[in-house]
């Protein structure tokens, strides 16, 4: 049976390959197949149809896409502005305190996302930690801050911050100290060193953080449900409804496929602008 001998590398990769085939490729194919099945059917042996996609384009689901993408975009923009200085500080300024700060950002990850979001609810709710304290201390009475778009954004920024911060600080750490010194030696001011050397050389890490947090943010649902009280309806919510209450699996599958296509194309556009080899560290 010499012809079927597997190479050493393939043998090592086999468990992962099998796992990915069963756990990732198969469900994905199932979703794609379902998206071409007639509406409200539950098998995958019917004649394929584009009815679900037609339904998406006719109905007003574009609003949900709009909210999901817009909020993901705003979240990532805010995260970029917040995280770069922290990442820079962690690598270059804080010294031995960087470990403590890393820990502070990591520990919340051990607590379930929903539990943390309900923590925010208790904090902001009428008569909760914040407003209750203000009332009893100063006598001012405010309406609940919950269930606003701003609150949804706060939740998203809070939840996805580590996913932006850590790749970004890795990116900043990848800037060789020599190049920084050389630039200053060649007459660059501190600002010029940052703009010409540190920022572009830390881009690979920043881009990974950007993509990671964007993809996660587009797929977010709990923030709008728990903190937003459904003040916005993201696309993930529509997908969930289609699969549960509406019992329309093919429509849900088609929505999921559409979301993948939209996010996938956006990611590809970004990656085309940045050399993937550089991002993966293969200079």
């Amino acid at each position, binding site marked *: 049976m010499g012809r079927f001998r597997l190479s050493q590398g393939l043998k090592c990769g086999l468990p992962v390959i099998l796992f990915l085939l069963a756990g990732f490729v198969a469900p994905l194919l199932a979703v794609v197949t379902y998206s071409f099945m007639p509406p409200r059917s539950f098998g995958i042996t019917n004649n394929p149809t584009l009815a679900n996609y037609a339904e998406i384009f006719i109905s007003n689901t574009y609003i949900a896409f709009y909210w999901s993408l817009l909020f993901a975009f705003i979240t990532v923009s805010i995260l970029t502005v917040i995280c770069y200085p922290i990442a820079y500080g962690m690598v270059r300024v804080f010294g031995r305190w960087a470990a403590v700060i890393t820990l502070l950002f990591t520990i919340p990850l051990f607590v379930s996302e929903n539990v943390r979001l309900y923590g925010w609810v208790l904090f902001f709710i009428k008569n909760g930690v914040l407003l209750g304290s203000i009332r009893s201390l100063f006598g001012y009475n405010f309406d609940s801050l919950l269930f606003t778009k701003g609150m949804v954004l706060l939740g998203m920024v809070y939840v996805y911050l580590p996913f932006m911060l850590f790749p970004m600080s890795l990116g900043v750490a990848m800037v060789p100290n*020599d*190049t920084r010194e050389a630039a*200053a*030696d060649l*007459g*660059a*001011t501190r600002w010029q060193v940052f703009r*010409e050397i540190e920022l572009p050389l830390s881009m690979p890490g920043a881009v990974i953080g950007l993509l990671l947090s964007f993809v996660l943010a587009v797929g977010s649902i709990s923030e709008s449900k728990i903190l937003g009280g459904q003040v916005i309806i993201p696309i993930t919510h529509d997908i969930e409804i289609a699969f549960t209450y509406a019992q329309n699996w093919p429509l849900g599958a088609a929505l999921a496929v559409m979301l993948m296509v939209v996010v996938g194309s956006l990611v590809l556009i970004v990656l085309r602008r940045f050399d993937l080899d550089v991002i993966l560290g293969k200079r």
Partner: protein
Amino acid sequence: MSSNSPIFELRQITKNFGKLTAVDHIDLVIAEGEFLTIVGPSGSGKTTIVRMLAGMETPTSGDLMLRGKRINDLPANKRPTCMVFQSLALFPHRSVGENIEFPLKMSGVDKRERRERALELLRQLQLPEDYYGKNVTKCSGGERQRVALARALAFDPEILFFDEPLSAIDYKLRKTLEKELKDIHRETGKTFIYITHSLEEAMVMSDRIGVLKAGRFVQVGTPDEIYSKPANKFIAEFMGDVNIIPVKSSGTGKLISPYFEESIVPPIGSDITAGYLVIRPEFLRFVSGKSDADNVIAGKLYNEYALGSRVQYQVRVGEHVFIVEKLRQQAPAAGTDSGVMIGWDAKDSVMVGN
């Protein structure tokens, strides 16, 4: 040796890193336009000295004078100096041309002029002009070397520092680049300060060499002075293959050594009574009788090594091994394990302390 005016002056410069003293009360005057090499083993403080001169470290104490003005606290980007790093520190996200233009861009030179100057430097460093747009990470080791030098020259500094830039380069290319560097030193007339751990490399290029050990200069002098009159055993050893024999005065105007019976005629003018006698391998010669040299010792030819144009012999005298080097055509006919006599004249030996 220099008739030129001093450009840089180190007065009692000390640099501590925590409890470690990297540079210990150093005095040095660097003349305008000279090629000075600082040689020392790793950890001797040579990089620290240059980093202080370049403005990347601040001295703990002492004065750093540039043309008579104290510049201890002047930052790197305000000094008329430029460093070629050991790693070269090229900017990987910029092309060859953009790397070279970097200092010009920082000082606001317009685009066309920058490009002209970059192309000029590419020509001067014997790189093809179409390298202007080439990705700097795609260049070979020697090319990257030249790009780094071109970038430093584009800054038009008065003083250039080199922190072992050739250490990672293979022997043949290194020899070529050493000569090119010396040529560029002549062409530009700038002051070059070069760091290396190889005294051999220092010999090839320098006007003056400073040998550093544990944060202090052991000897500063021309290559010739260092070669022929090493200040102590450390420098003599640092120069590579050399015969170092422990000796002490016999009280009768001669020297005796634990290695052999014969007493030695000391070099003239030496007032060291106990120390080491240094004899270069090329000053030892094979002789046929006691009267052929001031000092003659009998030994056994143990091994020989071909060194290209020269041949190196190991001659055993008791437990000690002498190294003798001869040009190929002067090689003796004796085979290994045969008895030979080696000799040297007193004037070709040097007495050093520890």
